């Protein structure tokens, strides 16, 4: 005998919630989780059509491939430099523009504009400025009687780090500004009454209370640094030699130059694991150092 029980209130809530969630679940399923599944599956195959099963062969190959090791090392250096630069420059700018300066809104907007510009445009812009033979910068340096620069050849990785920072520091600055404005002024006033210098207040109040923002900035900078592609593709084409062979650019070349989709998929999965590992370590370390007043 069938029972016709009325759905409970919580059941009706759950059904409504799932209905509202359905578009998002569908979107993420189709555009995120299915491709991830596809990449995981492709990473176990080899050949130009990725149609021969090779198990974990692509992973073993990546573990022994000097080009993969090199690309990972280059990317690691790039990411760490971007993280350090983003925090130091972003915080410095935020501190400066948190003061009651005339025209600070204009400064803030000006610093944020590069972040709103596509990496392709930024890359081409700096490529045209820095080109040793045809670039604008050497013309200006020449007019000023200064020696020409060849940074794209002599310091290519540092150059793309600098361009990345130039583009992204405005965003970091905005995050730090929000963080700074969230610190109650009463802490600073109390410290001032106790005779603390500006430097001491920065170290003992501002910086510790910015820890959540710093953690977020560092996590996002590591993720975007490890995923960087456009800088290498547009500005240096991974060169000279393999000096700026960032990991995602390397994956792109393996996929679209060498037509080894299985191997490139395996490297993508490895990158995902590295990013997750970095994020977890950063979060744990960040939580441990968090201070509440």
């Amino acid at each position: 005998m069938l029972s016709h029980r009325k759905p409970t209130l919580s059941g009706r809530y759950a059904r409504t919630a799932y209905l509202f969630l359905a578009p998002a679940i569908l979107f993420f399923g189709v555009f995120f989780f299915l491709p991830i599944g596809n990449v995981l599956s492709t990473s176990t195959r080899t050949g130009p059509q990725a149609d021969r099963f090779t198990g974990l062969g692509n992973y073993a190959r990546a573990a022994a491939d000097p080009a993969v090791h090199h690309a990972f090392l280059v990317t690691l250096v790039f990411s760490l430099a971007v993280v350090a630069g983003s925090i130091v420059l972003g915080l410095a700018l935020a501190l400066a523009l948190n003061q009651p300066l005339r025209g600070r809104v204009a400064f803030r907007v000006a610093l944020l504009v590069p972040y709103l510009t596509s990496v392709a445009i930024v890359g081409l812009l700096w490529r045209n400025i820095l080109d040793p033979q045809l670039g604008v910068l050497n013309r200006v340096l020449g007019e000023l009687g200064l020696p020409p620069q060849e940074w794209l050849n002599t310091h290519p990785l540092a150059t793309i780090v600098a361009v990345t920072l130039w583009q992204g520091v405005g965003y970091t600055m905005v995050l730090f500004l929000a963080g700074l404005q969230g610190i109650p002024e009463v802490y600073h006033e109390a410290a001032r009454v106790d005779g603390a210098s500006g430097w001491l207040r920065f170290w003992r109040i501002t910086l510790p209370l910015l820890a959540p923002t710093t953690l977020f900035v560092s996590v996002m900078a590591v993720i975007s640094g490890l995923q960087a592609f456009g800088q290498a593709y547009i500005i240096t084409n991974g060169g000279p030699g393999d000096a700026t062979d960032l990991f995602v650019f390397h994956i792109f070349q393996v996929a679209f130059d060498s037509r080894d989709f299985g191997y490139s998929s395996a490297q993508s999965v490895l990158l995902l694991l590295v990013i997750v590992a970095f994020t977890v370590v950063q979060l744990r370390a960040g939580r441990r150092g968090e201070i509440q007043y």
Partner: protein
Amino acid sequence: MSFTRRDTLRLAGAASIAPLLAACAGAPPPATESGTFTIYWNAGHDYKAYREVIAEFEKAHQVKVNLQKYQWPDLRTRLLADFSSGTVPDLVEEPGSWVQEFALSGNARSLQDFVDKDGQAMGFPADWLPATVERNSYKGEVYGVQLHLTCQLLFYNKKMFTGAGLEPPTTWAELLTVAKALTGDDVHGIALNQDYTYLWPWLLQAGVRAYDAETGKVMVPREAAAEALRFQAGLVHEHRVSPVPVSSTDYSGPQKLFAAGRAAMIITGPWDIAPIKQTSPDLELGIAPLPSHRERATQLAGTSVFVPLKARRPDLSWDFVKRITTARVEQAVTEEVGMTMPRTSWAKLPEVRQNAELKAFADAFPHAEDPGSDVRLTGHYGEYTDLLKTMYQNIVIRNRPAEQELQRFAEAAEKAIRG
């Protein structure tokens, strides 16, 4: 502002899958609905003469041609995504090294049945330079038809040479002497290209083969390859007669220096004639054979057209191939933009023989070789060229020892080819 661990992990997870998506996401499918004929074409080759062919084709078959234009790297990315999805264009123009690669991987359609039927009437392959047929064939069958034929020659600034009382160099030794004489204040005797493909003429003149299938060795003889690489690095770093090239996706740097009167010589092909004349109409351009070494040689290049295996109407695709490669169209394109062509009859046209620039190329074609064919047939051309780019730039830009870099390249390339 504060973020919980869950928030941050969520952001991290979402952000980290971007490269995965980039690796697996295909481009949107081309318009292949009935009545549309989709062509992938190089962005720089949209000529009036070809537009007229398209108009005739549309009228004859009652179709609408969807001409999609790309730069080569984007075209390749799009095409590979299409091959994966199974939705392919009806016809593709390619830069000269993809036909054998895609024939080998099963993505290109053999055109042999069409050639057997129509070849004689269209003059194929009889009227095409034999090397251009060979580079578009696989296992004895034709998979592509050469559309343009190019090679690299020595472009020189006549005024600079006359002013210094110099003649174009005919050997590597003369090239160095002349370049030294012409290097001066803000002017270099020669400007080398950062693009590794510009390495090939030097290697060919040194008698180097990209790959020996019998021994499985690359860059043979090795010492001759090292000599060619050392010579180029010497032009840049030892003698300083060439600026240090800058790595990028753009290969037009030397052409811009030449057009600006800041380089007396460059090694390039007919694709640079129009930009030089447009930007510097007063520049007196001279074109000479490449200075030779052990052999007189240059690199055979130029684009071809092919039909993807899964193209839905190969008979229509073939008809387009026939129309766009006629002698009449070749001639019209040469008149329009000065492009050089693969028909042997083209090289004999009065318009070509009477034009010093075109004649220089027509006379050089019999000495032009395609260095990549042996490597392409291994199925590892992409890995080989990526390694070659790294080696070339490490030597010519970063001034690393040629022997050491060559050895590293050879070990990695031979390993890749062995699979």
